[in-house]
């Protein structure tokens, strides 16, 4: 997030796109509702009539995969009505002309057709966002998990810059991170192209710095992304794979392929707290401690570094991940004996400029610090890009609308979109072990619009077979007016009735994110004697 969670409460307008906030980031959802009570206008863009849509002043129920068409039309209208922040555009940004030429003929009327919403509502939303003094954009996977995800993200930034909303309090572009420490994993360089603090692996100076710090020669070649790793493993090119705390057997697109790929490695190490679907395929399983059993830090979605503290001793003979990794490092002849996570953090500070001013002592005293925090006397950074952008001028990077890689056809006539539910988390490794949460959400389901269900003779609770070009799974029908007729929704948490056996693994070419949010599918009602096949994937 460029800005902080609590700044939302004082925003004048909040534009929420592709984020089921009240279910996936419930406490932020609560804060958005507090903002509404303070008078903020709320705009919601989503293919489903999610909870927060009830709070919306304008709700745009778009077809999945049409975000860019929508933002281009919003910008078109803002520019044609002269609602943009002309001074900000002039002083703080560049490449505005290209934006004008890309969105120039993309009128709300044109987008209305593509997005499946009314042109009037698009105009209303555009005016509302542009006229709010402090406008905040909040988005999540609904924007990123598309083959044009990177462009979707840029279009959010374009819109914010056009209205002068970056670099001000209670404004900004605010992606909500799904998992507790996605931000930290990225900050720490668990990415193929960057060391900690996003320092590039292809930069010779950076490489030299880390070679010196770690005392070994390093590669200057950008590594493979998760999806590429799985793909290469499938071809036998990745022979040794070490997986920590992840369950790609449920979370990856096109699961059948993932299983083959993992089996195809010569040596698979899985480190986790449970024997997950992925761990069952491993050659070595290393039992890790849960967050309650260890010390450390997490960085939340607003770049806030906070302490994790050990409350109980590790269960059985398991060990905290940091201890396991330090054991492997030692055996590989790298690194020193780390006495504690604080010891590791001291090393992090030395090579991570944005964390250099953060220490356990400061965190214990202040409760948290937001990076960038370059020195010990720095108070941390509440919101970014004040006065100027990291690169100097803000660059408009407009993108023309492209349809999803797979659009409905005669054989697969509806659009399948996926997401999460309130009561579960990711692949249910943790929430699936909590009785109450399981009772609230026991099994996979597919949400269908009542009219669409009627045409297929499907009623609530029916077993339904959902098929795409990747395969078929069974799930229980939930008939709900939350969806339009041409869209169905499945949660991705469940291994039985796994949505990701259906999703399209086609990647965004830049961020390499799979297109989870949109693929073509068909539904069939299933007679009861299918029951012996309800085990899921075929």
């Amino acid at each position: 997030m460029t800005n902080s969670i609590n700044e939302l409460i004082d925003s004048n307008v909040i534009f929420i796109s592709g984020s089921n906030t009240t279910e996936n980031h419930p406490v932020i959802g609560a804060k958005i509702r507090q903002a509404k009570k303070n008078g903020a206008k709320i705009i919601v863009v989503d293919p489903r009539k999610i909870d927060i849509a009830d709070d919306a002043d304008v709700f745009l129920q778009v077809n999945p995969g049409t975000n860019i068409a929508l933002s281009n039309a919003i910008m078109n209208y803002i520019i044609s009505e002269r609602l943009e922040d002309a001074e900000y555009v002039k002083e703080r940004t560049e490449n505005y002309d290209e934006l004008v030429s890309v969105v120039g003929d993309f009128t709300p009327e044109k987008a209305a057709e593509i997005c499946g919403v009314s042109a009037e509502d698009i105009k209303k939303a555009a005016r509302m966002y542009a006229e709010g003094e402090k406008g905040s954009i909040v988005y999540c996977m609904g924007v990123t998990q598309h083959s044009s995800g990177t462009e979707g993200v840029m279009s959010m930034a374009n819109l914010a810059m056009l209205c002068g909303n970056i670099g001000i309090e209670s404004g900004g572009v605010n992606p909500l991170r799904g998992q507790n420490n996605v931000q930290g994993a990225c900050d720490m360089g668990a990415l193929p192209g960057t060391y900690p603090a996003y320092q590039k692996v292809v930069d010779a100076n950076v490489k030299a710095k880390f070679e010196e710090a770690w005392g070994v020669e390093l590669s200057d070649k950008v590594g493979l992304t998760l999806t590429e790793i799985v793909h290469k493993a499938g071809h036998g090119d990745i022979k040794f794979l070490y997986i920590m705390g992840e369950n790609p057997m449920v979370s990856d697109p096109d699961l059948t392929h993932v299983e083959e790929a993992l089996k195809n490695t010569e040596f698979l190490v899985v480190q986790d707290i449970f024997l997950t679907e992925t761990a069952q395929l491993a050659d070595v399983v290393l039992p890790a401690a849960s967050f309650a059993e260890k010390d450390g830090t997490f960085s939340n979605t607003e770049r806030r570094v906070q302490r994790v503290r050990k409350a109980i001793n590790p269960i059985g003979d398991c060990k905290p991940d940091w201890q396991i990794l330090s054991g492997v490092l030692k055996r590989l002849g790298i690194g020193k004996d780390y006495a504690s996570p604080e010891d590791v953090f001291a090393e992090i500070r030395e090579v991570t400029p944005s964390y250099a001013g953060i220490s356990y002592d400061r965190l214990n005293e202040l409760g948290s610090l937001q990076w960038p925090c370059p020195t010990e006397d720095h108070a941390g950074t509440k919101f970014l890009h004040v006065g100027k952008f990291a690169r100097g001028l803000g660059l408009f990077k407009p993108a023309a609308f492209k349809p999803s890689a797979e659009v409905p056809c005669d054989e697969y006539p509806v659009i399948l979109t996926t997401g999460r539910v309130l009561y579960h988390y990711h692949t249910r490794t943790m929430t699936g072990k909590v009785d109450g949460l399981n009772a609230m959400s026991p099994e996979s389901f597919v949400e269908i619009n009542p009219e669409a269900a009627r045409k297929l003779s499907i009623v609530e609770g029916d077993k339904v077979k959902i098929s795409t070009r990747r395969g078929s799974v069974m799930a229980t029908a939930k008939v709900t007016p939350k969806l339009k007729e041409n869209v169905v929704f499945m949660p991705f948490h469940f291994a039985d009735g796994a949505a990701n056996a259906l999703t399209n693994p086609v990647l965004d070419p830049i961020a390499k994110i799979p297109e989870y949010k949109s693929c073509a599918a068909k539904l069939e009602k299933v007679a009861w004697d299918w029951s012996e096949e309800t085990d899921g994937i075929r």
Partner: protein
Amino acid sequence: MSMLNITIDGQAIEMPAGSTILEAAKKVGIDIPTLCHLDMEKQFNQQAAACRICVVEVENRRNLAPACATPLMNGMVIKTDTPRVIEARKTVLHLMLSDHPLDCLTCEKAGACKLQDLCYQYGIEESMYPGMQNDFPLDESNQFYTRNLNKCVACRRCVQVCTNFQHTKAIGFGNRGFTTHPVAPFDKGMDASDCASCGNCVSVCPVGALLPKSKEKYRSWEINKTRTTCSYCGVGCQMNLVTKGNKVVGVEPVDGASNDGLLCVKGKFGFNFVDHPDRLTSPLIRKNGELVKATWDEALDLVAAKAKSIRAEHGSEALAGLSSARVTNEENYLFQKMVRAGFGTNSVDHCARL
């Protein structure tokens, strides 16, 4: 910000305009008991001021003033411990106790109950006003907590938090007078409401009326609390893990920078995975197709040996690692260091993109 000069129990202090009497008292270390007041209610006009336990005397005012909801005025002279104040507080407690079952011996809340604490503080053993008691049925319909409204002291904290902070508006206040109590719509069980099971009402209930359905029985003096960060989503809510021995038995919200004392259903109630019987407790190595128990040395030696031999035979690019958005910064750092420095490749990623 303009400042106000006031006097509280003889001490003259300056406070910013818009502060309450309660805030002034806190600043100089004077203890005023509260019951319905919530810390997240930062403005005086957000207060329900339902319980009147916090009353104080203000010079030149006829009525006692609730400290939590009374804004300071310039020149105000406040007294917090006059006999009249003490009497008023005692009356409040007597009234509350008159409709409260005295089963403290077996109440889960004992030791952490505001009513119990206040009765102790003001030396009240039983109510001066014995009489009729409400008899509400126990509501167990929510998966995560029970409601026993017979213990309710009608402080409205649950309704305040649900309406003004969680904003689910699942409960309101039903009836008036003696039988007043928080209700789900149509006075049905919680399962018939819009309740999102966030548990924020449970966390703020000062008495035993709202209690988590706990697997473990514990007394409030047997537990430890450890402040940490929620391990589910990216909001990073601050919480205390409540432990008894080597077991997590509960979670309570802490007033952190991003959550201000709120949690959601996963953070509040989703902790039983920690000591689930399916937890992995020892390293496993695959032998003849089966995963069998091994020692740490065996497992780690094997991992390192395989990494080295595969690297020697096929080169660094045949190795890769997937890190995790669930583990700590320190662990992510060590993991990418292991892949980069130990395996010799940059093929490290995690599931942020998924």
